[in-house]
């Protein structure tokens, strides 16, 4: 069965690109428009992985990561956060919140897939 990956991003174009890349590589995708939307969806839906932006309205990326790690259903999934190179400090914050790894924006589809393969094992 294909693995289900959630992409949480307030940018429709990024969501679309991530989603398109994932589907092309045989993954199923669940989209969320911000952290709040993501947490709501994840409370009842088991996914294999989460890719989240950091800057999002309502609940931001860090809040989302903490929320997922505190819940039971998706506690151990890999979480990749999308950061930019100007946010080095965010990486450690994200790590502390429970992120598995990060990918620096902007990224190419093949870079995204490489990271997914890495953390999904």
């Amino acid at each position, binding site marked *: 069965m294909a693995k289900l990956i959630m992409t949480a991003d*307030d*940018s*429709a*174009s*990024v969501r*679309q*690109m991530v989603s*398109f890349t994932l589907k092309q590589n045989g993954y199923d995708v669940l989209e969320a428009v911000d952290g709040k939307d993501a947490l709501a969806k994840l409370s009842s839906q088991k996914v294999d*992985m989460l890719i989240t932006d950091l*800057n999002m*309205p309502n609940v931001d990326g860090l809040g989302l990561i903490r929320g997922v*790690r505190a819940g039971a259903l998706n*506690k*151990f*999934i*890999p*979480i990749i956060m*999308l950061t*930019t*190179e*100007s946010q080095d400090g965010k990486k*450690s914050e994200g*790590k502390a919140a*429970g*992120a*598995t*790894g*990060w990918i*620096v*924006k*902007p*990224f*190419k589809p093949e*870079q995204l897939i490489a990271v997914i393969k*890495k*953390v*999904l*094992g």
Partner: protein
Amino acid sequence: MIEQHIVTYREEANELLAELETSLLELEENPTDEELIGRVFRAMHTIKGSGAMFGFDEVAQFTHEVETVFDLVRNGKMTVSKLLLNLTLRARDHIKSLLDASVSGEESDRAEGEAVIAGLKQLVPSSPNEPSPPPVQSQPAPDAGAETLKTWRIRFKPCPEIFLSGTKPLGLINELRELGTCHVVAHTAGVPVLNDMNPELCYIYWDIILTTARGMDAIKDVFIFIEDDCELKVDLIDDGGTGDTDLDYKKLGDILVERGDLSPMEIQKILGLQKRFGELAVAVGAITPDKVQSALVEQQHVKNVRQERATQESTSSIRVPAEKLDLLVNLVGELVTVQAHLSQTAALHGNTDFASIAEEVERLTNDLRDTALNIRMLPIGTTFSKFKRLVRDLSQELGKEIEMETEGAETELDKTVIERLNDPLVHLIRNSIDHGIEMPDVRLAAGKPAQGTVHLGAMHSGDSVLITIRDDGAGLDKEAIRSKAVERGIIAATAELSDKEIYNLIFAPGFSTAAKVTNVSGRGVGMDVVKKAIEGLRGSIDITTAQGTGSTITLKIPLTLAIIESLLVRIGPDYFVMPLSSVEECVELTRDNIEEAHGRHLANVRGAIVPYIPLRDQFSISANRPDIEQIVITNIHGTKVGFVVDSVIGEHQTVIKSLGRMYRDIKGISGATILGDGTVALILDMGLLLQSVETLEQGGVSSAIPM
């Protein structure tokens, strides 16, 4: 990039630009509203991030500069001023024009963009003049010297909470495996009893020995996400340099000290007990077994790596068409001949200058010859590995269980020799499997393991290589061979033969002991063909066998076919060449000696009686016989035999020229060579010479019996 994505991005960017404009205008009213500042920043951020992803590099680069300024505002390091807002609005317009330009294909106003950025930079307080990072992530540069295979020891000890960050340690280890040859040892000593175990924690750590061409960075990249959440120690334990030709790696104790698992003091204490170190270390409780196991794995891994490298180094490097090498060797052969002529002429003239030049040329020629011949040398191992397949297929076909062992695969032989050895070896191995090794049930009944073994070995021996094919099968059946030979008329029923002679019967043409013709044997290739092929290589073949325990066939093959070290001798006006490999010594033969032996062809060499063959008689050379002749004592298959010649001229580098078809079958002559003065000398095959003399003396009864 799919067009549809670009359209989506452009739409989204336009929306964001509209939002940016509104936020900026609102910000003019409330310059300290953090919510508004955040919105401005986020809008820029998204435009930039997505822009680079969808190929709008110019948009991304430009927006990055503006975003950087607003990051400062967001962090309270800058205040919102009228000037900043003006510039940002101009920036917004410029982004819009960049986006529009990408549709219309028009050039955007680059100067405007530069002016905006210059203005923004002036606003930034004590702006450090550092270059902005490129918005497009650069690919990591490939490691320099990526071709060398290095071996690393990686101790990966994740923090117990590793699973809580979604990291899968096994995934990382699998990633390492993909980098190269890998041995992984898990240390499980820390796993508590079930009651005390928290299933959410990781109690295991790993030692990984990895041989890869990818370098340290690639290894570190594997752990990039968790470098702060684990104990990671990466040590280079073999740098792939050619300096480490020693196959044996460090001692177990040294490895454990290096890893910090034991102290040198502890090692000394344990060593005092004198047993196998690893067992002792565990027995005295100094260390857990898995740590010893892990160190042992490292030892073995590095040993394998070095072994592989040793074989690779001897096989790879440069590819040259075989004809070029043949040509080179031929030319060197000509040179050796000319050089011999030169030395000879120099000796005749007695001119010291000339002599020293000739000597120098001789030295260089010898070096050149050795080098040229060496180039053609290849390890025999490539041939060996082909046979593994043969053994596997044959044993399956015949329903036998056979394992093949090889030894001395690194032994080097001339390329041509290796090629010409292939067919004889195939035949010999087939024989071992088909006739030698018994069916599993027979073996078990004989008290042997069901699985038989064929051992293929190669080793240097002087200027020859010994190749052995040994099996632990039934051995040759003396009686069966004998009766078969009688049946075929090869020997008389009454003939008395030694064991060795009986075994040698299998080399007779048309001889086969196979009761039935199987798919494997009986293809019309007999041992006589093998023997011929080996003799064609100026080699010899020898069998030892013991009924019930197996046979060993030994091939003695000269290293090279082109040039041999030899002894140049003269009989009357004729010159002959004897391969030096079988020559033991030269002794004088006087008329008195001959009389003492009462005309029998026997010489007393320091008390030992050695039979000799007068070559003068063999070749019917009628020139005057000198008073003192020379006996060249040779060793042929372990027997001492002398060959009488008029005089021994000395050692000679013989470039072998094969004889024409007309003369190819002459017994005792294996080829010819050209001497320095242009004279032709025949190369003697002493083994065959002796054989033909013996058959003559036996009246030709057993003329078909090979040596």
